[in-house]
């Protein structure tokens, strides 16, 4: 947005806000929309950010991440908001840089939780990997809007997105919007999205061994969301993010 322009609330006609909770957006307010956190990672450096976001009020977390040559940024986020909670990442990759993202949206009620990423491979040899898992019940919603842009000379780009949703009851929903904009010709871009329910045969098998329904659900959800945090080597942080997700599960429909 140009300097001095008047800020206005986005609408659902804006692609990146297509599945947003516009009431929640309005409550966040137009001023907060411009609050970007800028992160620059110098050539060869690496950073890891682990976050648990969400509360009983709407939240917006926006990051602009600029990666220098050969730099690495890893973001791992548990999004367990009880109200509209949106995490946005705009990532710019220089030559040979790597961006890793693992995100979990989890929750019931009627809240919308979403991840919106825009990953720009501006130069050759950069890689990105995004793994998002969504677990929802009641009329809760989980969204992933992931845009990948590959510039004309960004040859040997390797970009992957993987979204899977687990809906614990009818009424919950998940939306995945992968968008690829590729101008180079020697690139690998993979994306996949699935929506499913808990595996009934696994559920019965585990109950037949003595596990009560709540424990069965916790183990199966833990296994399901585990993929999102596989790349997080710090065990304490790993456990913290996983615990936050699993404690949000308490009280979910069995």
């Amino acid at each position: 947005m140009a300097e001095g322009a008047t800020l206005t609330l986005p609408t659902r006609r804006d692609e990146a806000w297509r599945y947003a909770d516009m009431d929640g957006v309005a409550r966040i307010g137009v001023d907060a929309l411009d609050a970007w956190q800028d992160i620059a990672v110098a050539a060869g450096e690496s950073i890891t950010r682990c976050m648990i976001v969400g509360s009983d009020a709407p939240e917006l977390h926006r990051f602009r991440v600029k990666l220098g040559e050969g730099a690495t940024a890893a973001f791992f986020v548990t999004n367990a908001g009880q109200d509209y909670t949106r995490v946005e990442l705009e990532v710019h990759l220089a030559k040979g840089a790597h961006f890793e993202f693992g995100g979990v949206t989890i929750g019931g009620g009627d809240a919308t939780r979403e991840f919106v990423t825009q990953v720009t491979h501006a130069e050759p040899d950069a890689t990105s990997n995004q793994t998002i898992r969504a677990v929802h019940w009641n009329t809760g919603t989980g969204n992933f809007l992931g845009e990948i842009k590959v510039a004309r000379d960004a040859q040997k780009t390797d970009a992957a997105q993987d979204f899977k949703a687990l809906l614990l009851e009818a009424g919950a929903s998940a939306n995945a919007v992968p968008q690829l904009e590729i101008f180079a010709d020697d690139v690998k871009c993979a994306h996949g999205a699935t929506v499913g329910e808990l595996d009934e045969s696994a559920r019965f098998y585990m109950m037949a061994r003595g596990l009560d329904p709540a424990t069965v659900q916790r183990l199966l959800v833990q296994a399901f969301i585990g993929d999102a945090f596989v790349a997080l080597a710090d065990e304490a942080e790993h456990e913290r993010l996983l615990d936050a997700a699993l404690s949000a599960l308490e009280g979910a429909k069995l």
Partner: protein
Amino acid sequence: MLEITNLHATVGGPDKPTPILKGLTLSIPAGEIHAIMGPNGAGKSTLANVLGGKPGYDVTEGSVTFNGQDLLALDPHERAAAGLFLGFQYPVEIPGVSNVQFLREALNSQRKARGEEPLSGGEFLKLAKDKAGLLQMDMDMLKRQVNVGFSGGEKKRAEMVQMGILNPSFAVLDETDSGLDIDALRIVGAGINSIMRSPDKAVLLITHYQRLLDVVKPDKVSVLAGGRIVETGGPELALRLEAEGYDTVMA
């Protein structure tokens, strides 16, 4: 120990119920290993699933009591805690959950339901190692995800390791011998004997073949056909079935 009386059961749900069990009566006292044989489609697996409480199987008539308790009133996990073990014909793969975590949580859930203290991590591993050894299974396999990447035979062997760890008083084993080669069959059969051969335990062993019975040596053999028990005898009945076939024996 297990009293099945005039059991009728359907599959397919309330909209399209298909009757499978049609008045099955069977009594298995403690100390007995009772083999069930029968042609395909007789209702053998349905019997196992009804006893385990699998969703989708509806009992329309009759009763099952287990140690005097109404088994059918219990949820599957309560049946397990009461001492019932269901060995699956097709053990389920559970990606992302290790055998060790799964079985420790299962055992401690059962112990909790019975008012017993949970086993510590160390105590559990010792028990698991002991039972894996009995079935000649490498401990490394127990650290892997539940049944993921296991061959058919390994899955069946893992079922028996699970049985050894959970130590049930009654086991319903649904075609535990299918998919086993001759050596594995001998190991699994010896495992059943070692874990379940006891005056205070009993087994309902569903099988198609004599070869497992050569190792396990049942006390009684019943023939299940058309959803009912049509004949009960000693081990010699299984030999006759093997030699003459169901049609002749049941004629």
